[in-house]
């Protein structure tokens, strides 16, 4: 797939772009080109240690978080400054979410959940800058977050509850005859969780950015044909509207990823229906 592999070598990336250009059958623009992983400098294939645009923007996301929180927690005034207030609001928001959903013994997993929320939020927000790259639009990044958390939660569930953890799949509210069937369905839906968890974030961000690129491709129509007098202002308004939606989606997707992580954590700590 052209735009969505992340350890693509230069050769396969170029081949994919070529094939895309041929397959396009006359399509003049390629809105999925923005998701391609490219080297930052130098030539040659992309190894695991190569600095790419993905690693750069992930590093920038982390730096932004560090900047906000280091400068936010320097003051410790009773009446907070703006930066301190920002840090305190983010902390209180996520802490309240963890405690409400995962319970009091879930609160010790707060640093992990806070890391998810802040990383996804700042990666999404930085991806809205013109000309930037959004690491969370790649299924590779979000799958590591999603599957990694799923493996962690499953191991935690077995470590904390032993065989009782399997009580998660055994609905004691259902009639005895139906319980095996429901158990099978519950097991399948448990294993689908990391898939939907990761693909929701990647799909939302990728779809939003691709839609923006499609409208952006229509915007310079005024330069090539007369119908551009109508098409250009409409598409510029559309880009503005979609951009506003994308800012909202950036925040909502970070929130949804985090709150679902809290729900899965609660299931691991207190299994059983």
């Amino acid at each position, binding site marked *: 797939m052209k735009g969505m592999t992340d350890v693509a070598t230069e050769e396969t990336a170029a081949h994919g772009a070529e094939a895309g250009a041929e397959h396009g059958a006359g399509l003049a623009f390629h809105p999925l080109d923005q998701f391609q992983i490219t080297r930052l400098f130098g030539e040659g294939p992309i190894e695991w240690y190569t600095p790419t645009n993905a690693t750069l923007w992930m590093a920038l996301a982390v730096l932004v978080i560090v900047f906000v929180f280091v400068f936010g927690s320097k003051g410790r005034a009773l009446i907070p400054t703006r930066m301190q207030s920002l840090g305190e609001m983010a902390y209180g928001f996520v802490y309240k979410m963890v405690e409400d959903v995962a319970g009091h013994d879930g609160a010790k997993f707060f640093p992990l959940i806070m890391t998810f929320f802040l990383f996804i939020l700042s990666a999404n927000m930085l991806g809205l800058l013109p000309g930037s790259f959004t690491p969370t639009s790649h299924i590779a990044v979000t799958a590591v977050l999603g599957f990694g958390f799923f493996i962690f939660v499953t191991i935690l569930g077995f470590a904390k509850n032993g065989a009782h953890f399997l009580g998660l799949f055994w609905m004691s509210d259902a009639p005895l005859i139906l319980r095996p069937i429901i158990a099978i369905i519950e097991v399948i839906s448990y294993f689908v969780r990391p898939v939907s968890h990761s693909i929701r974030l990647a799909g939302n961000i990728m779809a939003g950015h691709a839609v923006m690129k499609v409208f952006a491709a229509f915007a310079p129509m005024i330069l090539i044909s007369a119908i551009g007098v109508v098409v250009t202002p409409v598409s510029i308004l559309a880009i503005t509207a979609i951009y506003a939606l994308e800012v909202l989606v950036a925040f909502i*997707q970070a929130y949804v990823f985090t709150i679902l992580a809290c729900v899965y954590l609660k299931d691991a700590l207190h299994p059983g229906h």
Partner: protein
Amino acid sequence: MEIAAAAAMGKFIGAGLAAIGSGAAAIGVGNVAGNFLAGALRNPSAAGSQTATLFIGLAFAEALGIFSFLVALLLMFAV
């Protein structure tokens, strides 16, 4: 009609059919939000505590619409 042209046509028709899924997602999301609104107008003081459930429901309904939009995009630009 040769294979390449038929394949291109099939791609575009397939992308159009896949986009119907986005409309279905709109119905689902509207359902969730509408039921939340109906409940919140009946019991306003309990509405605040359920906004988390609202967002989780919206996310699940929207995710499936995004999956079908993803299929449409993949057919258009990456096949």
